[in-house]
């Protein structure tokens, strides 16, 4: 997994609440058996007309946001299905950090597995970041995972919370399975005691 340490980039505003995984990546694109190549279909139905031309007023089609690396989003971002194609599409597009007042649980977990940092902030902070993002390409925000801060283009800085284990994995680009494999003895021991306690499982 790609490491996430510090990022300075353009933030795109998406104030709509309840942006669901069907919006992020419609199901017609879930038929791939690969993990890559979903970025071109990110937000497909919001981003493109049926004939493939771009919908001009969609935020990521605007010239100042085409290379956005941060999304400032409305409440409950990523609700809906468990499809990891959603964070795959976001990462493939080049977005590495999303800030919202809340995220759907499965999407939140899936993001960390793909080098994306989802940050939960209170409404008043999201409002400030949203205003900053609306300034366009000259407004670059800085996200520092080590320091757990996000800084607006005006230099206003906010601290955020992140789970220490998830932070550690993201900072070092660690693979979960490899880490769990180091604890295989605990799993073996659990399996043994569980199979005598609940042999029907």
């Amino acid at each position, binding site marked *: 997994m790609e490491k996430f340490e510090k990022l300075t980039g353009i933030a795109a505003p998406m*104030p*709509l*609440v*309840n942006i*669901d995984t*069907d*919006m992020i990546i*419609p*199901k*017609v694109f*879930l*038929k*791939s*058996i*690969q*993990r890559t190549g979903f970025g071109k279909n990110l937000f497909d*139905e919001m981003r493109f007309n*049926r004939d493939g031309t771009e919908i001009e007023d969609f935020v990521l089609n605007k010239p100042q946001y085409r290379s956005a690396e941060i999304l400032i989003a*409305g*409440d*409950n971002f990523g*609700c*809906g*299905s*468990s*499809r*990891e194609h959603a*964070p795959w599409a976001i990462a493939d597009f080049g977005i590495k950090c999303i800030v919202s007042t*809340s*995220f*759907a*649980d*499965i999407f939140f*977990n*899936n993001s960390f*597995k*793909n080098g994306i940092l989802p940050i939960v902030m209170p*409404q008043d902070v999201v409002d400030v970041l949203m205003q900053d993002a609306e300034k366009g390409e000259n407004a670059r925000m800085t996200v520092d995972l080590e320091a757990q801060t996000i800084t607006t283009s005006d230099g206003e800085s906010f601290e955020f919370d992140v*789970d*220490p*284990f998830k932070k550690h994995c993201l900072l070092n680009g660690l693979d*979960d*399975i490899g880490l*769990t*494999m180091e*604890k*295989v003895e*605990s*799993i073996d*021991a*659990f*399996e043994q005691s*569980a199979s005598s306690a*609940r*042999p*029907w*499982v």
Partner: protein
Amino acid sequence: MSPKTLYDKIWDAHVAHEAEDGTCLLYIDRHLVHEVTSPQAFEGLRMAGRAVRAPEKTIAVPDHNVPTTTDRANPATMTEESRIQVEALDKNAKEFGIHYYPVSDVRQGIVHIVGPEQGWTLPGMTVVCGDSHTATHGAFGALAHGIGTSEVEHVLATQTLIQKKSKNMKVEITGKLKPGVTAKDITLAVIGETGTAGGTGYVIEYCGEAIRDLSMEGRMTVCNMAIEGGARAGLIAPDEKTFAYCKGRPHAPKGAEWEAAEAYWQTLFTDEGAEFDKTVTLKGEDIQPVVTWGTSPEDVLPITGVVPAPESFEGGKVEAARRSIEYMGLEAGQKLTDIEIDTVFIGSCTNGRIEDLRAAAEILKGKKIKDGMRAMVVPGSGLVRAQAEEEGLADVFKDAGFEWRMAGCSMCLAMNPDQLSEGERCAATSNRNFEGRQGFKGRTHLVSPGMAAAAALTGKLTDVRELM
């Protein structure tokens, strides 16, 4: 010992390792797999030279992509991409030695219907699947939730999941339901109350007389949509109904093992005095048949209501409601019962079980659907289909003008050929009314099976109580 919730008990019984910061390895008893979210996980195993740690606890079935027409044995009924995904599952199941129900097997169906039906899902278990509606299995008092593909790979390789414990939320439905009100109305009414983010960070335990009174099928409907309320999982404490449902299923324990299992399951309830972080209470008798008007499952109102004005909401919801109403082609103030429907879909992991088909058939018996209406029933599994045929329900549907389909996810998410066309409006017994969910620019109103049947007869969203 301090009193524990049901969630606390199941959690504690499955922690294989706990780090100092509270990060746990949660042991997984059942891993269900389908064709859409698994190919990349199996490929990951292959690339790392890893095996499936517990193939005997891993069960696969293709459901999302499969056609539901009776000629589906013909490969030409599938697009090439869908065929590749289903073939990949065939191959992975064989290569990694996991239990498998191929499309040709009468037991094939939606993964969340097959699991309980075959007795794979039992009380007190941990159950995961790369599908958000895994919450369904919580009806058995099993801790069940959806996971992403990276986590699917993690469970395949280690039989564990890296987790931190969620908070406890109690949703109590007191008293009795009125006639015409179903499990679907309960679960939608709860989401209407809490919002789609209301359950974020929680595991919900549903309780109260109205929940106890539900059949296992109804309880599965309630838990199925816990995810739509944002919760990681929904749970209902197991009782005699649960045990009766499980007994005799192919993979349920037998003999002395059954006795031991049942004795253990009897301990799976929330202790007196256990604390919940949040409690929501609804009166069963206040719940009415409901319908969604917008593009989020929280956009729910009694069928007697009107499309709300966007300005009646607050904050970001004002813009979301405006967008929903425009997408749905509605007007604020319009009576819900004036909304005309083109298509009716009965099926899905929410409402594709035998009881759902019985409820719909009861309304349709001896009647014909409205001229020009497209109506389909997609049983949740081949066994549900067979049972419905045996009970004569299939004939009721066919005589009324419904298409009688083979099992699969079908038009719930429209990954197979069953889709809405642009602007088409559907009364659906499924779980999501998102933009484009049932087809590009398709419009979805979520309802109970009885309400779906009623809409098929009248051609409009209809209060099922008027046809009972």
